[in-house]
């Protein structure tokens, strides 16, 4: 994977690299093992120290990290028998949302997730993970399929937002997102959403009307990007760090506001340092969460989801 290191994670990233080197040495020669243990310990401690003091904007940058695991990276690690299903049956296949059928701990599930690209070429294909209406209409098609066949839905949220383009408006971006929210609200199967990276506004929420919402430790979820917020408030996108702090978009904020139910801890140095370990941790939380809804009837599942969102908001009166 191409090296892409953010300034603030540099000391940690360098140590993690050393751990990797030492680990391969230790595999060949057990005499390195005490040294490896010591280095792992130090690295873990330093990472915890540095990452505990991250600003909200630094967490936003981690959530967008070029090496962060994307939906397909998790699909590869969490599921077997993956069958990707494509197209909205109306206009096109939007590659910025992937979806399909998979086996998860022995049961069939429907998976829908935003998909960013790695590198310029794939990013053009994936439109940088910013869906057009047909992406949401594909998602709706899959939600309805899940409902018809009684399959749980697992979604993975990772988008800057729905694509703001001419074609998107011509083909009804608003209607597509609104209809996706409605479809998620009505299906009689359990839905678990996980914010694995960026949770950008309505384009994220169209995969987010779930019974339970998980968030990775360094993921964010916001009504508007910090840059967009700063541009509106101060006509100055460079003040994004201030906006990020004001908007309360980090995992602990989201938990406190009731928007997410569980925070999934990331491996030392962030999910991008160890995709396998990130997937193992997500798997644990995901399976526990999904199993907790076993035995609920379709009506109970719809009601449970209704109550979850019904309670969100803060007002006087």
């Amino acid at each position, binding site marked *: 994977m191409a090296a892409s290191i953010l300034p603030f994670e540099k000391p940690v990233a360098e140590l993690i690299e050393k751990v990797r080197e030492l680990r391969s040495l230790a595999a060949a020669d057990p005499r390195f093992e005490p040294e490896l243990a010591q280095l792992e310990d130090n690295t873990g401690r330093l990472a915890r120290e540095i990452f505990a003091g991250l600003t909200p904007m630094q967490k936003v940058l981690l959530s967008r990290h070029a090496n962060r695991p994307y939906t397909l990276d998790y699909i590869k690690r969490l599921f077997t028998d993956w069958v990707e299903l494509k197209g909205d049956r109306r206009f096109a296949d939007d590659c910025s949302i992937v979806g399909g059928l998979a086996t998860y701990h022995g049961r069939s599930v429907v998976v829908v997730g935003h998909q960013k690209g790695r590198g310029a070429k794939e990013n053009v294909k994936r439109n940088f993970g910013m869906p057009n209406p047909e992406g949401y209409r594909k998602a709706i098609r899959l939600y309805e399929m899940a409902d018809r066949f009684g399959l749980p839905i697992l979604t993975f949220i990772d988008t800057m937002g729905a694509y703001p383009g001419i074609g998107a408006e011509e083909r009804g971006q608003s209607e597509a997102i609104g209809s996706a929210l409605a479809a998620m609200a009505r299906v009689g199967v359990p839905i678990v959403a996980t914010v694995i990276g960026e949770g950008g506004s309505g384009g994220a*929420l169209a995969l987010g009307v779930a019974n339970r919402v998980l968030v990775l430790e360094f993921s964010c979820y916001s009504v508007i990007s910090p840059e967009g917020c700063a541009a509106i408030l101060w006509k100055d996108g460079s003040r994004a760090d201030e906006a990020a702090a004001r908007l309360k978009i980090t995992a602990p904020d989201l938990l406190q506001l009731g928007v997410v139910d569980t925070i999934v801890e990331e491996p030392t140095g962030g999910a991008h340092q160890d995709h396998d370990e990130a997937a193992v941790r997500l798997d644990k939380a995901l399976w526990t969460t999904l199993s907790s809804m076993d035995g609920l009837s379709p009506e109970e599942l719809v009601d449970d989801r209704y109550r979850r969102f019904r309670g969100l908001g803060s007002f006087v009166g």
Partner: protein
Amino acid sequence: MTWPEKTLPTTDASEKRSLGAGVFRRCDGCSHTHDASELARTFEVCSQCGHHHKLDAEGWRRLLLDDGELAQWDDHLVPNDPLRFSDGKSYRDRVAALHKKGRAKEAIEIGRARLDGRDVAYGAFVFAFMGGSMGSVVGEKITRLFERATREELPVVLLQSSGGARMQEGILSLMQMAKSVAALERYRKTRLPFLSVLLHPTTGGVAASFAFLGDVNIAEPKALIGFAGPRVIENTIRQTLPEGFQRAEFLLDHGMVDAIVPRPEMKAYIGTLLQHLVGHRQARR
């Protein structure tokens, strides 16, 4: 961190046009100079060119509702400040300043009314209150509108005019989209209609939740309606947008709304829809 105090205008930009309006008003469409009272009489529609100026929530009540009467529901709900948000001026102060002016408590009014002789659950956004933005109160009131319409078996007529989700309540504003749409989904089981009226402007989180989910979507002439704001799109694609982009006529061409209905015909149009869709279960009174 220091926060430079912005010089804030004493009025909302959205209200400028009606403030200080003395005896004469110039039409935004054709520049014709009107007697201010004449524009009030025509519900802000220019008699010369037909341009629709913004009509406030009170004007819409007078235009659409029988006797102009709305028995308001949940008018007591006011914003909290869950994020302790400030952008130089605190959200709390911003809301307090609007309350002091005493017009509306929030960016939507809802209630029970009669429209063309039929009982309806009615809601209308108040654009003058923070650009009609949807925070927790707006989301809650729309949710209650659908819930109560479900219980009382009433058709829903909702007039939208909103810049989208309210930034000052952050992610909780986003969640209002899911909450209100879930309530709409429940309401649908009553087999009563949801008539969605899209006024100028309807964008962002309001457009991308319930606004387009009407059994019938009605737009006002030339209203700006869309997901992303025109400036955001221009900055993304780096080209100038075509004339008429995201206007009501554009939406009609692209199959997103059923009709563009001028203000003078709006009441009769909705009345006819109600006759078709609820006439079999609710007679006119």
